C-alpha cells in the first residue's frame, strides 16, 4: 500500500469501532473492548509504518507525504482536503499512537473487566462494588462499569478526532477533528452523567472550549478569504506569508498574519486550557481517569498546542531568529508564561491527586506556548511529546492509585473516605510497587530530574532558548514555575507513596491488574528514553554522543531549519537548581505532614484557584442567563414585540367598532338606511292627503305640473 493511502486509513479504525460498538456490539462487553482495542492497534500499526517510512525519506520537510481530494465546491474552485505527513506530523503521530493504544488497554482494567456486575450500580454513576461469596463469607469486590461498551465507543471516536487532526493537511479538517474531540470530551467528562458535578463539568468543558473555537472559526474564515486556501503548505509559501505579514489590519497594530494567528491561538487557549480559559480542565477530572489521560496527554490539550505549532510560520511571519518579537508572538509568549506560573501556584495547594496533575498540565502547556511565543519551535515540539508521555503515565498512574485506594474503601466499607485525597494515602509504595516506581519516573520527568528523564531535556531546551535569545522575563517566569513544578510533584509523591499509611483504606490498597500496570511500564520507558533523542550537541560531557535526531528531524518541517542553539551554562544551572531544589524541598517539607492542617500552603486563595470560577459565575454566566431568560424571553419577545403585535388586534378591532359606531350605525344605518325609509314614509304620509280620489283635483294638479315643467323647460332650454 502506498504511504499516502495508508495515511488516509490511519484515523478510520477507531471511528469504525465507534459505529460498530454503538450499533451492534454494545451488549457484549468483551467484543466491544476487543473491537476498540483492535482498532487502536490498527491505527497504531499504521502510524508506526508511516513513521518508519517517514524516517527513511530525506528532506521529508520539503517532500512530505501528501494527498488531497476535492471536498467542497466553492464557486468556480474547490476546497480541497487531504492528508499530510511531514516531520512534525510523523513525530506527533508517533506519540499519539502510543499513548492512545496504552490508554485503550489500560481502560479494560480500569473499568473492572471480568468483575461481577455491581449490587446497586446504575447507568450514569461510577460502579460501587459487588458482593461475592467465597468459602462461605461475603466480601465486596470492585464491580464492572455498567456502561462499559459505551466508554470504548466514545474513546474510539476521541481517538478518531485526534488522528484526523494530526494527519490533516489543512485547517478545516484540523478543525473537524478539533471539534469532534470537543464533543468527546463533553461525552466522556460527563460519562457519569448521573453525578451533577460531572454533568456540569462536561458542559463547562464544552462551553469554555467553544469560546475559543468561535474565535478560531473566524480566524479560519479570515485566513481562507485572504489567501483562498486552507492547506498548510499553500499558506506557508513564502509569497503568501510575506503578503500576510505586510498587510496591516488596524487591530492592536497586528498584521493580517498576526491577527489570524492570534484568532487561531485563542482557539488553543480554550483547547489547551490556557489562562483565562483554563477553568474547565481541572473540572474535567470528573470523568473516568483514562479520559483524563486521553484529554491531558494523548489528544485534546496536545491538539491545542499542535495547532499553534502547525501555525508557527504564520505566527512568526515577518520575524526572524534573534529579532524582536512581533506583537502576536509577545501575546502568545505572555499567555504561556503567565499560565505556566499561575497554574503552578494553584497546583501547590490541591489535595486531590488528579487535580494536582490537572494544574500541572495547564502549567506545562504554558511552557510550550511560551516557547512558541519566543520562537523556540523545536523545544516546544519536544516538550509537547515528552510531556504527552510522562503526563499519560502520571494520569494512568494516579488512576491506578485511586483504583488501589478504592479497593481499600471496598474492603473497609467506609465510603466517606475520598480515594482521591492524597491526605488519605501515604505509604502506598509498598502496596503498589509498580505503580510507585512508574509514577516516580513520571513525576521526575515532570519535574525535570536531570539527565535521565525526558522532561529534563525538553524543559531545559525551552529555558535555554529563552535565556540565549534574551527573553529574560519569560526565562525567569518559567524558571520559577519549573521550581514550583518540582516542588508540588514531590509533595504529591511524598504524600501518596512515602511515609506510613494514614488511613485503613490506604493500608488495604492493592496493586492493580496487569492491563493497567503494563501500559504504565511501557510509558515509563518513553518518559525516560524519549529525552535521549534530543540531547543538544554542545551539552557538556554527553553532548554529541548520540546525535540530536529530534532537532534534525523536526527542524526540517520549517522552510528554514532553525539554527542550533549555542550552549550557555546559566540556563543549565538554573534547570539543575530548580529541579533538584524543588524536589528536595518538596520532600523536606512534606515528609512528616499528615493532615491538611499541618500543610502551610493550604492558602485559601490558592485552594480556591484565585476565585476564577466565582468571578466568571458573577461576571459572565449569571448575566448571560439573565439576559436570555429575562431580557430576551420576557421583556423583548413577550413584552415588547408581542406587545406591539397585540396592539394590532385591539387596534383593528377599535377601528372596526369606530367605523361601526360612528359611521355605519349613525350614518349608513340610521341616516342612509333608516333615514331613506323614514323619509319615504314621511313623504308618503304627507302626500296621502292629495290622494283624494277626485278627478278634478288630479286634473288641476296635472295642469300645475305641466305649467311648471313647461316653464322650467322654456327657462333652461329656450331662454
Amino acid at each position, binding site marked *: 500500500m502506498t504511504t499516502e493511502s495508508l495515511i488516509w486509513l490511519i484515523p478510520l479504525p477507531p471511528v469504525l469501532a465507534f459505529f460498530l460498538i454503538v450499533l451492534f456490539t454494545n451488549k457484549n462487553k468483551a467484543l466491544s473492548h476487543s473491537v476498540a482495542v483492535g482498532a487502536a492497534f490498527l491505527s497504531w500499526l499504521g502510524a508506526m509504518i508511516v513513521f518508519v517510512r517517514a524516517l527513511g525519506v530525506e528532506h521529508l520537510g520539503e517532500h512530505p507525504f501528501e494527498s488531497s481530494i476535492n471536498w467542497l465546491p466553492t464557486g468556480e474552485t474547490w476546497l480541497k482536503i487531504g492528508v499530510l505527513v511531514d516531520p512534525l506530523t510523523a513525530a506527533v503521530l508517533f506519540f499519539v499512537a502510543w499513548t492512545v493504544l496504552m490508554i485503550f488497554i489500560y481502560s479494560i482494567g480500569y473499568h473492572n473487566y471480568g468483575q461481577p456486575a455491581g449490587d446497586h450500580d446504575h447507568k450514569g454513576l461510577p460502579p460501587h462494588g459487588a458482593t461475592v461469596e467465597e468459602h462461605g463469607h461475603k466480601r465486596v469486590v470492585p464491580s464492572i462499569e455498567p456502561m462499559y461498551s459505551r466508554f470504548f465507543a466514545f474513546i474510539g471516536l476521541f481517538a478518531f478526532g485526534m488522528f484526523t487532526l494530526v494527519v490533516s493537511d489543512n485547517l478545516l479538517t484540523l478543525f473537524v477533528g478539533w471539534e469532534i474531540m470537543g464533543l468527546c470530551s463533553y461525552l466522556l467528562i460527563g460519562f457519569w452523567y448521573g453525578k451533577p458535578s460531572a454533568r456540569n463539568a462536561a458542559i463547562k468543558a464544552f462551553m469554555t472550549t467553544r469560546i475559543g473555537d468561535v474565535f478560531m*472559526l473566524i480566524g479560519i474564515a479570515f485566513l481562507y*478569504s485572504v489567501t483562498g486556501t486552507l492547506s498548510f503548505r499553500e499558506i506557508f509559501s513564502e509569497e503568501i506569508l510575506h503578503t500576510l505579514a505586510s498587510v496591516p489590519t488596524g487591530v492592536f497594530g497586528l498584521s493580517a498574519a498576526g491577527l489570524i494567528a492570534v484568532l487561531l491561538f485563542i482557539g488553543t487557549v480554550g483547547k489547551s486550557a490556557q489562562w483565562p480559559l483554563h477553568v474547565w480542565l481541572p473540572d474535567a477530572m470528573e470523568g473516568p481517569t483514562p479520559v483524563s489521560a486521553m484529554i491531558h496527554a494523548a489528544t485534546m490539550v496536545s491538539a491545542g498546542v499542535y495547532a499553534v505549532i502547525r501555525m508557527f510560520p504564520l505566527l512568526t511571519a515577518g520575524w526572524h531568529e534573534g529579532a524582536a518579537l512581533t506583537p502576536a508572538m509577545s501575546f502568545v509568549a505572555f499567555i504561556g508564561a503567565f499560565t505556566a506560573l499561575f497554574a503552578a501556584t494553584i497546583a501547590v495547594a490541591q489535595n486531590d491527586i488528579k487535580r494536582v496533575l490537572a494544574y500541572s498540565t495547564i502549567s506545562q502547556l504554558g511552557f510550550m506556548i511560551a516557547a512558541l511565543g519566543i520562537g523556540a519551535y523545536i523545544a516546544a515540539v519536544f516538550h509537547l511529546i515528552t510531556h504527552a508521555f510522562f503526563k499519560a503515565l502520571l494520569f494512568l498512574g494516579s488512576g491506578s492509585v485511586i483504583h488501589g485506594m478504592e479497593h481499600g474503601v471496598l474492603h473497609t466499607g467506609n465510603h466517606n473516605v475520598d480515594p482521591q485525597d492524597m491526605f488519605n494515602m501515604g505509604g502506598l509504595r509498598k502496596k503498589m510497587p509498580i505503580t510507585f516506581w512508574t509514577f516516580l519516573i513520571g513525576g521526575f520527568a515532570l519535574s525535570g530530574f536531570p539527565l535521565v528523564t525526558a522532561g529534563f531535556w525538553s524543559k531545559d531546551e525551552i529555558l535555554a532558548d529563552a535565556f540565549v535569545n534574551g527573553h529574560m522575563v519569560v526565562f525567569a517566569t518559567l524558571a520559577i514555575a519549573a521550581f514550583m513544578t518540582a516542588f508540588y510533584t514531590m509533595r504529591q509523591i511524598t504524600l501518596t507513596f512515602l511515609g506510613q499509611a494514614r488511613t485503613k483504606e490506604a493500608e488495604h490498597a492493592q496493586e492493580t491488574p496487569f492491563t493497567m500496570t503494563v501500559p504504565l511500564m511501557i510509558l515509563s520507558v518513553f518518559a525516560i528514553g524519549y529525552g535521549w533523542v534530543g540531547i543538544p550537541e554542545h551539552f557538556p560531557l554527553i553532548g554529541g554522543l548520540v546525535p540530536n535526531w529530534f532537532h534534525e528531524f523536526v527542524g526540517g518541517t520549517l522552510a528554514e531549519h532553525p539554527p542550533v542553539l549555542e550552549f550557555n551554562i546559566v540556563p543549565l544551572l538554573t534547570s539543575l537548581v530548580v529541579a533538584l531544589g524543588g524536589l528536595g524541598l518538596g520532600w523536606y517539607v512534606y515528609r512528616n505532614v499528615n493532615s491538611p492542617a499541618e500543610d502551610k500552603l493550604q492558602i485559601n486563595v490558592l485552594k480556591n484557584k484565585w476565585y476564577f470560577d466565582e468571578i466568571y459565575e458573577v461576571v459572565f454566566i449569571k448575566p448571560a442567563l439573565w439576559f436570555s431568560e429575562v431580557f430576551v424571553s420576557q421583556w423583548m419577545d413577550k413584552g415588547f414585540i408581542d406587545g406591539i403585535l397585540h396592539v394590532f388586534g385591539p387596534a383593528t378591532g377599535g377601528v372596526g367598532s369606530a367605523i361601526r359606531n360612528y359611521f355605519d350605525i349613525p350614518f349608513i344605518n340610521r341616516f342612509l338606511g333608516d333615514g331613506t325609509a323614514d323619509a319615504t314614509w314621511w313623504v308618503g304620509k304627507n302626500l296621502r292627503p292629495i290622494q283624494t280620489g277626485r278627478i278634478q283635483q288630479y286634473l288641476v294638479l296635472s295642469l300645475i305640473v305641466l305649467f311648471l315643467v313647461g316653464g322650467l323647460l322654456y327657462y333652461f332650454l329656450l331662454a
Partner: protein
Amino acid sequence: MDFFNTHLLSLILFLPTIAALIMLFLPGGETKLMRWFAFGASLIPFVLTLVLWNNFDLNATGFQFEEKYTWYEAINASFHLGVDGISLTMVLLTTFLTPLAILASFSVTDRVKPYMMLFLFLETGMLGVFMALDLLIFFVFWEIGLVPMYFLINQWGSANRDYASLKFMIYTMGGSLGLLLAVQMLGVLFGTYDLVTLYQQWNSLSADTALMGMTVGTVKTIAFWAFAIAFAVKVPLWPFHTWLPDAHTEAPTAGSMILAGVLLKLGAYGFIRLVLPLYPVEAKIFAGWLAVLAVGAIVFGAFGSLGQTDFKRLVAYSSVNHMGFVVLGIAAAGLAAGTADAHIAMNGAVLQMFNHGLSAAGMFFLVGVIYERTHTRDLNQFGGLFPLVPVYGGILIFTSMASLGLPGLNGFVSEFLVVRGAYPVLKIYTAISMLGLLFTGAYILKGIMKVLHGPLNEHWAHGEHKLTEINTREILVMVPLMALILVIGVWPSWILEVINKAVVALF
C-alpha cells in the same frame, strides 16, 4: 413515457393533491388504511424527485423540466414551472420530509382522514412555491400553503392553539400584503408575471424612467422592502419572529416538523429566487440592514432559546437562530454579488436551508416522542432520563449535535460556508454572529442536560409514569434523517455541486 418525462414537475406537484382527493372517497373510519395510504401516496413524489434529481443536467444553465400552460390569459399569467439547482434541492427536502412527517403522525388518532389530507395539500402548496416560475403562481401557492397549516395547528394543536394559529395566519398574510401589491405592480408594468422575462426586463429599466410619478429607484426600493418584509416574516428574521415559537409549540409534532423543516424555507427561498435577482442594486444597498436583522435572529434566537423552560419552545427558538445564518449568507451574497465570496455565502445559505430542514425536523420529532409519553414539555420535569431511554438519548444527542453545528455533521458545512462567505464583506456582523454560535452550544447542551442527564428520574422510572423507549416506527422516522445528516457532513459535495452550479449561474 414521454408524458412522464415532460410532466415530471406537475406530477410531483399534484400527485399529493390527487391522493388527498382520492382519500375523500375512502372510508374515514379505517384509520390504518388512511395512514398507510397517505404514507404511500407521499412516497411517490419522493421517488419521482429522485428520478428528477437523477435526470437533472448539472451542466445546463437556466431552468430545467420547464412546463408552461395558459392559466389566466387576461392578465398574462401562465402556469410556468421549472427547477434549477436551488429549487431542486428544496423540492427534494419537501418530498423527503413529507413522508417522514406522515409516518411520524401515525400516532394521531383524532380525525385521521382530514389530518392526512391536509398534509398532502400542504405538500402541494409548498412544492408549488419552489417550482413556480411565474410571480402570480408563486403568490398563489405561497398563500395556499398557509391554509392546511392553519387548520393543522388550529384543530390538532395543543392548549394555546387558537392564539398560535391565528397569529401564524394573520402575521404571514399581513406580511404578504406588500408582496401582493408589488407583484401586481410588476404585472401591470410589464404585462407579464413570468419570472424569467421579469428578471431581464425589470433590471434593464433605465434609472431615469419615471414610474407612477416616482423614479425607478424609489419604486424599486419600496418594492424591495415589500418583498423583503413578506419573506422576513416567514423566515423569520428578528424582530418578526415571535409567531414562530407560538406556532411551533402549539402545532402537532408532524406539523412542527414541516413548519420548521420546509415552511420557513419558503421565506428564505423567496429572498433567493425573487429578491436578489429582481433587486440586485437594492440588495447591495440594503445588505447591511438585512444583515442586522439576520444577526439579530442569530443572537437573540440563541439567547431566546437558552431562556426557555419548554422543550419545544427551546427547539423553536433554535430555528430562529439557524435561519439567521441563511439570511446572513443571502445578505452577503447580495452585497458581494458576482464574487467568489457571494458564491460561497450563497452555497452556504442554500445548504443551511436543507440542513436545518433535516435537523429541525428531527429535533421537533424527538420532542414529540417524549411529549407523547409524558404529556409535558416542561424541561424541569425531565432530567435523568438517559438510563431509561438510552436509544432515544443517543438519537437525541446525535440530532442535537447536528443542530449545534458539530463538524462531521451537516450543519457545520453550511455554517462554515456562510461564515466564510460573509466574513470578508460583513466583518463586524459575522463577528457578532459568533456570539450566537457560542450560545447555540449553550442551549443545545442545556436541552440535553435538562432532559437526559442528572440522577435517575424516579418519577418516570416506575409504575404508570414509566417512560417507554422510542419504538421502531419512531426510529424509522429518525434513521433517514440521521443518515442524511451524517452523509452531508462527511461528503457534502453531491448536493453542494447541484447548488453551486445554480448559484454561480445566478449570482
